[in-house]
């Protein structure tokens, strides 16, 4: 599968939106070359605000711009765009319900060499816990474009988490987005894997590996972690009766917690939450790190098998 960067597609889509809608503005905190808001900045310098290394100020500034009818897209790395300015997002964006779109790049361990300080593993936890916030993690570059176009037309706060690394494309260029979003990408009957972001393609690879051992895994792309698309998620649970969740995030209060919470009420089944254990990241190459943390397709499939065996045993 061809690899593409979610942040590259974000930058291009934001630029396109900027051409269509003069209300779109963009803010960055000294990372526009990395988040790719530089493309928008170059074309629309008067609608781009580099806030310098000041994320808290950037969030407030975005809220203020939205009060004048603009649609601000705020970008930086996931770690700086959430934890660093949590209270500003809480008050100036979520309690105030301002029309601010926070689109961050460099989520998760695949940030790579920068290490723990830059590998954000708690952002989904932080953002899903805020009332009025919607949280989306696109499964590939093309879905990223669709998400960006979608949120530009939806009033209110959004958090979109993207990656530094390029990874395989699953969707076609013309794919569209809706909210809430969960979609069965591969049908199976023995186990369902709910995955989000770049773990979706890992889940698909994992399903191929499992298939060779006679295990047919259903793979669901849960792109909107909040709100959850309950119908699809519950229906796959009913069909497979055993589930795993897969995310490049702490196993505490991420996708796994949301799915578990939903299914414990709607259709309780055994669920294994896979992600980063309760710890911080480390430096390394993205692929090495996925292996180190047991989030590569091979390791995941053996964990799936173990989990199924344990339930049967």
């Amino acid at each position, binding site marked *: 599968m061809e690899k593409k960067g979610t942040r590259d597609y974000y930058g291009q889509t934001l630029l396109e939106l900027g051409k269509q809608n003069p209300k779109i503005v963009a803010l960055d905190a000294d990372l526009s070359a990395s988040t790719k808001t530089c493309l928008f900045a170059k074309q629309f310098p008067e609608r781009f605000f580099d806030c310098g290394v*000041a994320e*808290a100020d950037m969030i407030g500034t975005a809220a203020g711009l939205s009060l004048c009818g603009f649609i601000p897209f705020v970008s930086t790395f996931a770690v700086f765009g959430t934890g660093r300015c949590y209270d500003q997002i809480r008050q100036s964006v979520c309690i105030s319900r301002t029309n601010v779109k926070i689109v961050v790049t460099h989520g998760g361990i695949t940030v790579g060499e920068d290490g723990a300080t830059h590998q954000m593993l708690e952002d989904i936890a932080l953002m899903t816990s805020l009332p009025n916030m919607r949280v989306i993690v696109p499964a590939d570059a093309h879905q990223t474009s669709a998400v960006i176009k979608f949120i530009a037309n939806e009033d209110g706060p959004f958090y979109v988490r993207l990656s530094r690394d390029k990874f395989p494309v699953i969707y076609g260029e013309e794919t569209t987005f809706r909210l809430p979003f969960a979609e069965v990408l591969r049908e199976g009957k023995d186990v369902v894997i709910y995955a989000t972001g770049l773990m979706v393609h890992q889940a698909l690879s994992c399903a191929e590996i499992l298939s060779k051992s006679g295990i047919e895994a259903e793979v669901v792309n849960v792109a909107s972690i909040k709100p959850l698309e309950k119908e699809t998620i519950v229906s796959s649970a009913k069909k497979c009766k055993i589930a795993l969740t897969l995310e490049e995030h702490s196993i505490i209060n991420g996708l796994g917690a949301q799915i578990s919470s939903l299914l414990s009420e709607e259709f309780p089944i055994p669920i294994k939450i896979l992600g980063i254990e309760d710890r911080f990241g480390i430096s390394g190459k993205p692929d090495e790190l996925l292996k180190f943390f047991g989030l590569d397709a091979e390791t995941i499939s053996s964990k799936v098998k173990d989990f199924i065996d344990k339930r049967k045993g």
Partner: protein
Amino acid sequence: MATDFINLEKTAYEIRKEILKMTHSANSGHPGGSMSCIDILTCLYCEVLKHDPKNPDWEDRDFFVLSKGHASPALYGILAYRGYFPKEDLLSFRKLGSKLQGHPEKIMLKGVEITTGSLGQGLSVANGIALGLKLKKSDNKVYCLMGDGELQEGQVWEALLSSGHRKLNNLCIILDRNKLQIDGCVEEIKSEEPIAEKLRAFNYNVLRIDGHNYSQILQAFALFKQTKDKPTFIIAETVKGKGVSFMENNVDFHGKAPNSDELERGLKELDNHLLKIGSEKN
């Protein structure tokens, strides 16, 4: 046209009574810092702001951001007196089901531009509004009232750098310099002086006024409107609890409501003052 200072003072002192009644009725809230800034708010909403109480979302309005959100009784008082909502609603302050939340909430009450309460955030929002107005080629202005305790928040200095750097001449910050914060004297807890020099170095037009003198307040706003190349920062020297003798400069009334006895005595003092207004020069 001569400004009616007598009416401004009457309105401000009537609202001081409301501040006492609201906080007493809620048995909570922040009367001290509300009374230190009410003369400024009264001048803004009666003489300075371009606004329409019947159409709070009017596209052509000036914006006011109360960054020190705990002064909500002052904001609610002036909004009610200008007709944003009925004065009778004031006593619902902080009660279940009220639009008048403990700290002002944008989505609950028309006229509140942004939710504030957690300190240090208002100026960044005001900066964003100022940028938005410029982008829209609007001549409207943004006013942001901050507390001096609030000046200790790091975000404030990020925001001060931003507006100075961007030369936001449509932005006017008013510092309610009442010199007290919950734990005591601002200068003892974390010294902020020399504020004027700091702000001049940040590229601000800095003015220092008596924040209870209507003539000085209005003159400062007039100077702001004439300033072309930088934002304005008005240091308003104020008295916490201004208007009620036993509350003045008394840090106990930062976040404590007057009890029934204090309410009665406070209202009497304010009524006495109201009777005297007009008989002496402002």
